[in-house]
């Protein structure tokens, strides 16, 4: 028995070239400081020192300071927490709606499918940003009301802004996922193994949860990891337009847009480039997006047994 067993294929190490691990380290290295520093960054992000305007990174401000003498380090940390929070929550909302919508449409088929997919088509036809803005405007009084009822007013206003933003982004970005998932369900439910499961006496509900859904994990994970960076980018775009995260509150998006403005004013002031205002938020955003993509790739490989190497 022993020699046979030893010749059997051993399960291969999961973290091969370790891009997945690298991504995870990157993500944790950025996300953890952002989250753990929240108690301090929430107090300090707005602290101004007019004697130290636009200082370059150095001993006083290790990431430099902005035109109002605020520490860019604290602002980047809080901005990261906000951006990541919005990105992840919006992705969760979007994946939740998209997967439910797509699987129900695909599994039900017929008229229900047609109706649900026409709704998606109509939403697709509307300009994306318009939808987000409309949703944001429609939701904000309601969310603010709820938030005020639950916490002190000063917190509530700022938090409700973030909440409406992430609901608006998540509520709009599920369309592609719903289409992809529906397509997958349509092809999966005709697969012989679904019929074979039913021929074994597996009920419809169990067939759906146990046989169909796990086969969707691949596309879901890939889309989720792509939705997070997308939501972060959406957030920064909206913040840039002035609909997103509002002025004193930082996010990587509006930090970067402030940095861009400063970069444009080099010639006028004659001073040195205030590169740090643009570089730090962009580098952090870039590394995070990269980390997310690496992790998404590794997760897909891990969750899909077909991509494990076959050994006949």
């Amino acid at each position, binding site marked *: 028995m022993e020699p*046979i*067993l030893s010749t*059997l*294929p051993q399960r291969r190490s999961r973290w091969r070239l370790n891009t997945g691990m690298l991504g995870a380290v990157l993500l944790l290295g950025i996300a953890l400081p952002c989250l753990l520093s929240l108690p301090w960054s929430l107090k300090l992000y707005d602290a101004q020192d007019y004697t130290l305007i636009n200082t370059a990174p150095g001993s006083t401000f290790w990431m430099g300071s902005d035109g109002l003498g605020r520490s860019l380090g604290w602002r980047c940390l809080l901005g990261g927490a906000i951006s990541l929070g919005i990105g992840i929550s919006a992705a969760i909302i979007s994946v939740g709606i998209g997967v439910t919508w797509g699987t129900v449409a695909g599994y039900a088929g017929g008229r229900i499918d047609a109706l649900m997919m026409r709704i998606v088509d109509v939403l697709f036809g509307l300009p994306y940003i318009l939808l987000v803005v409309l949703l944001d405007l429609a939701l904000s009084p309601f969310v603010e009301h709820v938030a005020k009822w639950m916490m002190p007013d000063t917190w509530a206003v700022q938090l409700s802004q973030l909440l409406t933003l992430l609901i608006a982004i998540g509520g709009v970005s599920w369309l592609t996922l719903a289409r992809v998932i529906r397509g997958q369900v349509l092809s999966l439910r005709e*697969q*012989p*193994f679904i*019929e*074979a*499961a*039913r*021929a*074994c*006496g*597996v*009920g*419809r509900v169990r067939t759906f949860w*146990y*046989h169909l859904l*796990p*086969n969707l*994990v691949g596309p879901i994970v890939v889309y989720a990891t792509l939705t997070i960076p997308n939501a972060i980018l959406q957030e920064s775009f909206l913040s840039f337009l002035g609909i997103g995260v509002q002025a004193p509150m930082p996010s990587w998006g509006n930090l970067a847009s402030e940095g861009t403005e400063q970069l444009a004013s080099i010639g006028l002031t004659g001073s040195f480039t205030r590169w740090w205002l643009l570089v730090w938020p962009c580098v952090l955003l870039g590394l995070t997006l990269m980390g997310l993509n690496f992790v998404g790739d590794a997760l897909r490989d891990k969750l*899909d*047994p*077909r991509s*494990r190497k*076959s*050994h*006949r």
Partner: protein
Amino acid sequence: MMQHDKPQPLLRVENLAVSFDGPAGRVRAVNGVNLSIYPGQTLGVVGESGCGKSVSALSTLQLVPTPPGRFESGSIWWNPTPGSPGSSPESSTKSSETSSETGSDPVSLSQPVDLLKYSEKQMQKIRGNDIAMIFQEPMTSLNPVYTVGEQILEAILLHQKVSRSQAVDIAVQALKDVGIADAASRLRVYPHQMSGGMRQRVMIAMALACQPKLLLADEPTTALDVTIQAQILELLRKLQAERGMSIMLITHDLGVVAENADVVAVMYAGRVVEYGSVHDVFENPLHPYTQGLFDSMPILGSSKHRLRTIEGNVPNPADLPSGCPFHPRCRSYAGDQRCTASDPPLHEITPDFREHWASCWHVDGHEQGKATRPDVDVVTQIHA
């Protein structure tokens, strides 16, 4: 063999008609099919693609998707305890367990039940437990995201009240029974890590893990190469002999039928056109379609000559020819009125006291024959 002391068949399909609603209107895929399978028997169902073989088998488990499918008429009588001498003691204790589990049908001990009237819930108890099915494509019939073991365990745990570790033992035994070496470690392997023949063995192991009384094998070897095909069929024969189960073997390979079946049903355009013991049908094919099938088979060792083909194509089921659906391709058809006017019923043709049915006006003895239920209770010992 007298009519009255015949044992009851395990499964009797009566006048089954299944239709599908499609863009071209309603299509009758199966049109008045009669079949019966006795305990320990192998029924070979032969016919071209689209003649209704698979739909008949899927109907038995109510696996025909409805809609678009519709059961128009007929019944499928299932009698798990036909009381034949062939049934083993274990199988009878098991069936009493099932009937007490089902609860709702205490009559199943002696009375046949109509599977088409069963609810989805009741069918779930039958599927995989009493009647199991194996499919044509071993490549895709296993769920790619689960190990082989998990899938066999699921089948066992669904139907048997055993603990997980007992189920693992049953699964290992099931894999050993289908000739998979090193079964315990094979449980941890994913389907894509196995070859086609291995996967079909796993499918058979899964189907047989619950000791079904009837196995519906829908072209189990079509996707496999010839040597593996022979192994799988040999395995099915062996397991059938050990357990006394019945097999409905759906195929379009007459060679497979000759070697494995006891009784043959030849199907064409959704109906059974010839029915009889494998010996009778192969010795003396009556229906022109069956004769055509045999003529189109190469004979090993015979001198080189062109094989005779059956002219024409399988008719579109949405637009069947009038009368006998085979008449446009039939070599016996000579413009006679009766062939185009009416569909010949399946009559018992009894020269020499044989049990042999055919549906063709041209067959000698068809007019004198009676439209009895095709029913052949032979278990040929071709296995040994």
